[in-house]
């Protein structure tokens, strides 16, 4: 076995270990990220599991430069989410208006949560696709602006600007509807 092959194996082993380490920290975050897109918790959890399997299959194509591994996982999550939405209804927008949250709370609390969910979901829908992605990756993925920039191919300054504009827009919409 030549040195190059040994190094490749060592690198892949290292990536496998790192991916395994990221599982505990990022499974929940990825599930939430997907949930924002599809508004279905069970499906979001399944997709989060798929993300790690897909990452494992594609580990050879992962290159360290540019995007850290956690950012790469969110790229995979994004692709799987798009596939899921396509399968569901050829890019049909999820009918947020019809989403009903279920819970063990009493009916009054559940109704209140549904109203709040609808208010926030409607505001999120009014953001541009990129703004929504920035908010999703920052608020639910826990990525830094620089990492988000790596995922979206933007500078961290551009991400910060989009982030501020997106939150101001959300504030405006949610404030009006409150």
């Amino acid at each position, binding site marked *: *076995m030549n*040195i190059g092959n*040994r*190094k490749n*194996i*060592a690198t*892949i*082993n*290292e990536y*496998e*270990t790192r991916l*395994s*380490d*990221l*599982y*505990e*920290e990022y*499974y*929940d975050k990825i*599930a*939430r990220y997907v*949930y*924002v897109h599809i508004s279905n*918790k*069970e499906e*979001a*959890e*399944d997709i*989060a*599991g798929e993300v*790690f*399997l897909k990452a*494992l299959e594609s580990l050879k194509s992962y290159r360290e430069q540019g995007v*850290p591994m956690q950012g790469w996982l969110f790229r995979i999550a994004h692709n799987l989410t798009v596939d899921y939405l396509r399968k569901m209804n050829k890019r049909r927008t999820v009918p947020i208006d019809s989403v009903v949250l279920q819970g063990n709370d009493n009916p009054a609390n559940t109704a209140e949560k549904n109203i*709040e*969910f609808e208010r*926030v*979901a409607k*505001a*999120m829908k009014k953001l541009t696709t990129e703004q929504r992605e920035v*908010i999703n990756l*920052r*608020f*639910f993925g*826990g*990525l*830094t*602006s*620089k*990492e988000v920039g790596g995922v979206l191919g933007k500078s961290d*300054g551009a991400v*910060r*600007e989009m*982030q*501020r504009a997106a*939150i101001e827009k*959300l*504030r405006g919409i*949610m*404030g009006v509807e409150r």
Partner: protein
Amino acid sequence: MTEDFDRILDECIDRINHGDNLADCLSDYPAYSEKLKPLLQSMHDVQKTYTFTPSADTKRAARQKFHTALGKRRQMTPVLSFFKVIPRPVVWATAAVLVLAIVGTLVIRPILNPPTLVPSPDGNFAFLISDEPNDIGDFESLNVTISRVGLQAAGSVRRLEFTPETKTVDLTQLQGEQSQEIWRGNAPAGQYSQVYIYVSEVKGKLESTGQIVDVKLPSSKLRISMPFEVTVDTVTSFTFDITVVATGNNGKYILKPQIGNSGARQEQKLLE
């Protein structure tokens, strides 16, 4: 001005994501608090609406599936043929070292439970400091004195600490790819979830005026939550990236950890 605000908002979002509360962030930026508060409140509303805890059963099943797939992959990877090229005495010696290390880790260490790690030039853990360039260009020198470094074991309350061998680093010399090792020694093998450093002093000298300026810390320690593994047969080098950011046009600066550029790397000793 907008760019400054964007940075401050961004920093507050990072801090809240890492467990700080909104009030602390607002109190650090009184000039911006009126503008920051409604935006951070909106962030809170959005996070609260979508945050849920995935079902433990589903997560467990997915984890099991992942580890099964990982196990299958590792069986298929020619790791064994890699060991075949190593002379047998080396394998036995490595195995003996591993056994001793495992005995040391599992039996002796928990009994002694050393609170402070001991430095060693041949150790399996190295700790480095680096600086992501943000506003470091404003400084002629920015000396940061680190009194202690701590490692948090994953899934346990156990913490280990060590005192850096090099206590003071000048961040102006550690920009971008540059880094400085401040400690090397032996750390118990295992999974770790967090690294924190206690900064006892920060002295910044401005490039433009030569004036010594106040550089604040967001809290008593700088903390990075990031899972990593320390093993006995590799050297794990953890780089803790710090960045300095101006907090507006008031001549004040803040020092904060930069999670994106921090992390652990492992060097395979056997390959050398």
